[in-house]
C-alpha cells in the first residue's frame, strides 16, 4: 500500500516536472502581456539541443543551459514578431511551433547521420540523481525522492519566479506592462524592453522543460518526445490563475492524475456499482487526467482573471 502511494507520488513528480518549467515560462510571458503559444516549439528545440549537447560534450549541466539558451533564441524571434513588429501573438506562436519542429529535425539529421533521433546518453552524461542509493530500492523514500536533479530544480525555480514576479521591482514592471502598458509607459517604463525580457525568460524556461524530458526522463531526443507538453503547460498556467505557484499545483494535479491512471491500469480495477460493474478500460483511463483537469477547472478554481493587456500589441504613441 505504502509503495503504491510512493509510486503514484513519484510518477506525479516525474510527469509534472517538464510541465512546470514550461508553465513558469508561460506565466512570466503572459504576465508581461505577451501570449506565448510557441512554448511547444521552444521545448522541442530545448529537448533536441539538450540531448545533442549532452551527447557531444558529456556534461548534463552544460546541456541543460544550452537548452535554455536555444529556448531564449527562439523566444527572441517571437519577441521580434510580437513586440517590435506588432504581429498577432497567436499567429507568431503557431508559426514558431512549425518552424522549431522542422528546424530541430533538420539539425538532428546533420548531427546524427541522417537520423531523426539522437543517440542515447550514458548515465554519467544524464542529469544526476542526488538521492540515488540514499534509500533502499523500492522503498517509499526511493520511489518518491529518487528523482533527477531537474525535478528539484523545478520547485526551486517556482519559488524564484514567484519572488521575481511579486517581490522585486522588475517583477512589478513585468506585471504592470501586462496590466496597463500605457500607464507603465507614461511612468517611464520601457514597455518593449520589459516585454522582451519576459518573453526571453519564458523561452529559457521552455528550453529547460524540453531538456528535462530528453536528458532526464529519457536519454535521447526523438521526434515525438515533446507532443503537446507546451500546450498542457499553457493550460496549467491559466488553470493556476497566471501565478507561478498556481501553475505548479495545476501541473502536479495533472501529473497525479497520470499516476493514478497508470496505477489503476495495472490493477485492472472493476468498479462495482451494485447493479452493474464498470470495467476500467485503458482507453477510459487515458482520458482521466484531462477529465479531472476539466472538472476541477469548472468546479473548484473559481474565476480566473488574465492580465488585462494580454495578447494586445502596444504601440507607443509618437
Amino acid at each position: 500500500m505504502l509503495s503504491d502511494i510512493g509510486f503514484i507520488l513519484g510518477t506525479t513528480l516525474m510527469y509534472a516536472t517538464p510541465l512546470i518549467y514550461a508553465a513558469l515560462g508561460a506565466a512570466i510571458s503572459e504576465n508581461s502581456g505577451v501570449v506565448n503559444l510557441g512554448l511547444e516549439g521552444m521545448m522541442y528545440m530545448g529537448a533536441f539541443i539538450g540531448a545533442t549537447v549532452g551527447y557531444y560534450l558529456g556534461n548534463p549541466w552544460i546541456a541543460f543551459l544550452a537548452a535554455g539558451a536555444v529556448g531564449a533564441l527562439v523566444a527572441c524571434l517571437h519577441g521580434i514578431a510580437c513586440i517590435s513588429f506588432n504581429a498577432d501573438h497567436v499567429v507568431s506562436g503557431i508559426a514558431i511551433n512549425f518552424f522549431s519542429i522542422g528546424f530541430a529535425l533538420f539539425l538532428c539529421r546533420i548531427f546524427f547521420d541522417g537520423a531523426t533521433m539522437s543517440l542515447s546518453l550514458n548515465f554519467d552524461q544524464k542529469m544526476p540523481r542526488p538521492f540515488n542509493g540514499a534509500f533502499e530500492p523500492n522503498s517509499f523514500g526511493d520511489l518518491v525522492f529518487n528523482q533527477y536533479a531537474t525535478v528539484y530544480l523545478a520547485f526551486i525555480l517556482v519559488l524564484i519566479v514567484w519572488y521575481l514576479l511579486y517581490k522585486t521591482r522588475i517583477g512589478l514592471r513585468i506585471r504592470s506592462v501586462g496590466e496597463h502598458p500605457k500607464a507603465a509607459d507614461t511612468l517611464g517604463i520601457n514597455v518593449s524592453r520589459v516585454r522582451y525580457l519576459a518573453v526571453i525568460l519564458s523561452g529559457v524556461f521552455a528550453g529547460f522543460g524540453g531538456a528535462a524530458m530528453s536528458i532526464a526522463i529519457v536519454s535521447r531526443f526523438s521526434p515525438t518526445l515533446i507532443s503537446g507538453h507546451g500546450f498542457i503547460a499553457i493550460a496549467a498556467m491559466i488553470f493556476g490563475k497566471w501565478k507561478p505557484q498556481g501553475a505548479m499545483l495545476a501541473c502536479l494535479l495533472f501529473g497525479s492524475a497520470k499516476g493514478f491512471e497508470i496505477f489503476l491500469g495495472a490493477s485492472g480495477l472493476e468498479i462495482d456499482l451494485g447493479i452493474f460493474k464498470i470495467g476500467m478500460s485503458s482507453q477510459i483511463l487515458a482520458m482521466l487526467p484531462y477529465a479531472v483537469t476539466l472538472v476541477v477547472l469548472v468546479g473548484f478554481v473559481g474565476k480566473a482573471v488574465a492580465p488585462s493587456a494580454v495578447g494586445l500589441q502596444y504601440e507607443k504613441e509618437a
Partner: protein
Amino acid sequence: MKRYLKICMAAMIISGLLLSGCGKKEKQDPDSTSQSGVMKVGMVSDLGGVMDQSFNESAWEGLLRAQNELGIKIGYLESNNNSDYGPNLESLTDAGNSLIWSIGFMMGDAALEAAKANPEQKYGIVDMAYGNNTPPNLISVLFKSEQASFLVGYIAGRMTKTNKVGFIGGIKGFIIDSFDYGFHAGVNYANADVKILRQYVESFSDAAKGKSIANQMYQQGADIVFHASGPVGDGVIEAAKEKSKWAIGVDKDQNSLAPDNVLTSAIKRVDNAIFNIVSDLQKGKFAGGATVVYGLKEGGVDIAPSSDKHVPKEILSEVAELKTKIIRKEIVIPYNAKTYEKFYIAKQ
C-alpha cells in the same frame, strides 16, 4: 490598346512555351528509363523519416541492397505530415518508377487511392492489408510479428528469476495484438508458472508514460519487460536501465539503446521483404492484388542478432529448435485472443 495586345500576345507565347516544356518533360521520363533498361524503384517514408532506426530505415536498407546486387536505380521521398503521402506518391509516379513502396499502415489510404488512380503503375505497401479489395497493381506485405514475439517470450519465460514478466503495448489493435498474444504464448510455452503483467499505454509517443508503466511492473516484481509501443519504448528501456532490469526491444535491434539492459529484440526484416519483391519484379514476377505474409520461414521476422550477448547458449539453441518447429508448422503461434485460447487448450 496596341501595346496591351502585344503584352497579351507575349504572355501567351511564353506560357505556351513553358507548358509545352512541361509536357515534354513528363513524357520523357518514363521513356528514358525503359530505353536505358535500368529499373527504378522508389519509396515514400511515413512520418519517422527514412533514417528512423526502425522500419523505414529497414525498408531503405532493402532498397540499397537491391541497388548493389541487382543494379537498379532507387530513390525516396519523406513525409513530414499525413497530408504529404498522396503528393509524394504522385511525384514518384510521375518520375517513372517501376515500383513504388509505401512504408507503414499510416499510408494505407493514400497508397490505395494512388493504386486505383494509376492502374498502370505498380505499388507496394508494408504493414497494411486490404483483403479482397487489393487492387491488382498493389502488393501488400504483412509480417508475422507473433512469431518473433513468441521467441522473445520464450526467452523471457526461460530467463525470468522472479517468475513475473511484463508486456507493454502501444495502442490496442490487430497489429499490437499479434505481439501481445505471441509473447504470451511464448512465455507460457517456456514456463506455465510465469505470471505476465500486461498494460497498454494508449499512445505511441508518450515516453514518460511508458517509463512509469515499466517502473510499476518492475516494482511489482517483473524482471523482464517486452514493449511493442514504438517511441514509447524509449521510456521502457530507460526504466530498465535505471532499475538494472531487462527490457526486450521491438522492430529493430534496440540493444544499442542500453547495451546492458536490452536482452533481445523481436525484429521485423522489412529489408528482406522489399528486396525479395523487387528481385522478383526484375525477373518479371509481380504478385499484384495479393497480400504477402513474411514470417520466420521467409526471413521476415527474427530475434535480434545481439541476443547472444546476454542470452545463454543453451536457450538460444532451444530457440533455434523452436524456429524449425514453427517453420514446419508444428507450432502455430496465436495472434489474437481467439487463437490464443486454442493454443492454450492445444498445449494442455
